[in-house]
């Protein structure tokens, strides 16, 4: 190692040292600890307060825990609605907002606005909108002669939450818009000269160029969807009858309500595994459909 590069190593490490320390304290050590706890009987309610090694027992118990499967199924069910809906709506909106129309700035601002609302506040607003007797939805449905259900009951709560999630796609839309700005004008003009219509240009030119952005948004959406906690925590508390009991809520309850730290740690690692597996699939499939220049 030359003197120059050793010098650079010191300087570089010096500059990134805040992150290195933070990474160790707030990410690496907690993750290692939680991996260890996940193999331990570690209930804060027990008098000893010390983790006791029990091997795979937590994981074995989990597989037999009906609530674990219920929460997992719920989360998957929610994701199966919220993910595609969010992806489609945000892409569609971005394409519309990319059109050369008057007042596009206004439209963009309006689409972005909901994603600024604090989660708690949006939970309040939607709780009130979904209200079966006094809410806005059933009022509007009543106008066209439909007797609306109680939107947060056992059957409708999940679709309602998914619908609500679409309200906050503004962030994703803006990311798509940025991607759309990078579609070369010459390419579109060339396609037009070759007689390609609006749809043809969209499918053969715009979308292929946009695939890296679509991929990025997909990965972010997977992570976000599988970590949803606050909205159902406030709006339904997992109910009615555990119909909206999400995986992350199960984790939270085990840790902070029942103080089963070992069990909760095992849950966290399974969640991380699921997220990694799903993004892994996304990355693997990306080779087939994502075009990088």
């Amino acid at each position, binding site marked *: *190692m030359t003197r120059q590069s050793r010098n650079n190593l010191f*300087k570089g490490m010096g*500059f*990134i040292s*805040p*992150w290195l320390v*933070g990474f160790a*304290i*707030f*990410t690496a*050590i907690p993750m290692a600890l*939680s991996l260890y*706890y996940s193999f331990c009987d570690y209930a804060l309610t027990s008098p000893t307060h010390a983790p006791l090694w029990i091997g795979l027992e937590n994981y074995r118990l989990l597989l037999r825990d009906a609530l674990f499967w219920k929460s997992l199924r719920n989360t998957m069910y929610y994701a199966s609605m919220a993910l595609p809906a969010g992806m489609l709506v945000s892409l569609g909106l971005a394409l519309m*907002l990319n*059109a*050369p*129309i008057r*007042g*596009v*700035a206004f439209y*963009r*601002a309006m*689409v*972005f*606005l909901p994603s*600024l*609302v*604090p989660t*708690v*506040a949006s939970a*309040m*607003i939607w709780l009130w*909108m979904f209200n079966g007797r*006094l809410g806005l939805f059933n*009022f509007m449905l*009543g106008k066209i002669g439909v007797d609306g259900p109680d939107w947060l009951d056992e059957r409708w709560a999940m679709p309602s939450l998914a619908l609500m999630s679409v309200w906050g796609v503004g*962030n994703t839309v*803006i*990311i798509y*818009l*940025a991607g759309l700005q*990078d579609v070369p004008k010459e390419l579109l*003009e060339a396609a*037009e*000269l070759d007689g390609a219509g*609006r749809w043809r240009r969209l499918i053969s030119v715009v979308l292929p160029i946009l695939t890296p952005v679509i991929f*990025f948004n997909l*990965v972010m959406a997977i*992570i976000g969807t*599988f970590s949803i*906690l*606050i909205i159902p925590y*406030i709006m339904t508390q997992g109910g009615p009858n555990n119909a909206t009991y999400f995986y992350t809520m199960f984790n*939270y309850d085990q840790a902070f309500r029942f103080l089963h*730290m070992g069990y909760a740690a095992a849950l*966290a*690692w399974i*969640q991380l595994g699921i*997220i990694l597996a799903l*993004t892994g699939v996304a990355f693997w499939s990306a080779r087939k459909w994502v075009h990088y220049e």
Partner: protein
Amino acid sequence: MSEPGVAEGKPVTLLPQRPFPKSVSPESRVSRRTSRRTRWDLLGVHLGLLCVCAGLLLPFLWMLSTSLKTVTQTTETPPRFVPHPVQPRNYLTIFNYPNFDMITLTRNTLVIALLTVIGSTLSSAIVAYGFARITFPGRGVLFVIMLATIMIPFPVVMVSTFRIFRWMDGVSAAWFGPDNWLQMLGTFKPLWLPAWFGSAFNIFLLRQFFITVPRELSEAARIDGCSEIMIFSRIILPLAKPALAVVALFSFLNVWNDFLGPLVYIQRPRQYTLALGLQSLQNQHGGSQWHLLMAASVLVCLPTLLLFFLAQRTFIRGIATTGGK
């Protein structure tokens, strides 16, 4: 140098852009032939967007309308969209409401937000400089590790981070006795302290900006005898003001909107943030005082909405950059 966009991408703006291409060149006959159809298409887009925006705004209007109603009006069936009589007094009521002390809640949230914004912006800039402007062995690997941490959702580490803070308290209590100044749990520290070690997302954002600053600038300064710290603070930081604004803004929003963090780390009502206060207000009434709840919601939303209208450009540039170039 005109305001540089973050990364090399062109910033998207919400501000009026030229509505139509300025001139259609005479060669492109195709455009003219299809222009009639195009106009109809664009009208369709207009209509579609109008409907979508109306739908998206509906919750806001409903919140605003409810916040101005009397309690009897909120239970009226069918509900009325425009409140009559209008009761703006709700906002005053909520300001002096028992267990929803707006002043304290706002102060708590602001204290956490301020400490987070300062810490995160400063430390992220320092780390980003290291990743962007200094070539050292292992940089690539460390950068990838840092990016990967963005993918770890908070719920996955929240339990063990909580344990870490508890452990820290144990250690500091052994050295300095109970309730010392290093005490973590029961204070705001667990909420803002991690920000002082840089946040992966902000580091990434700033690094994208720093690498666009020409190398020659640093080289020239180095020849003039500037140390690395001086190059960072005197040359790069002043140039990076727009990017720093983006990072500061987003850190602020994140804290303002955060619910899970305070939920895990704050127990005493006197330390509640706005988010926690709003939720406990809802718990108290179990859904009977909707006019007050909506008035409170409006007040909680207001700062971020105002901030957005004041700093639209910064917002949009920030989000656009995250699009992962």
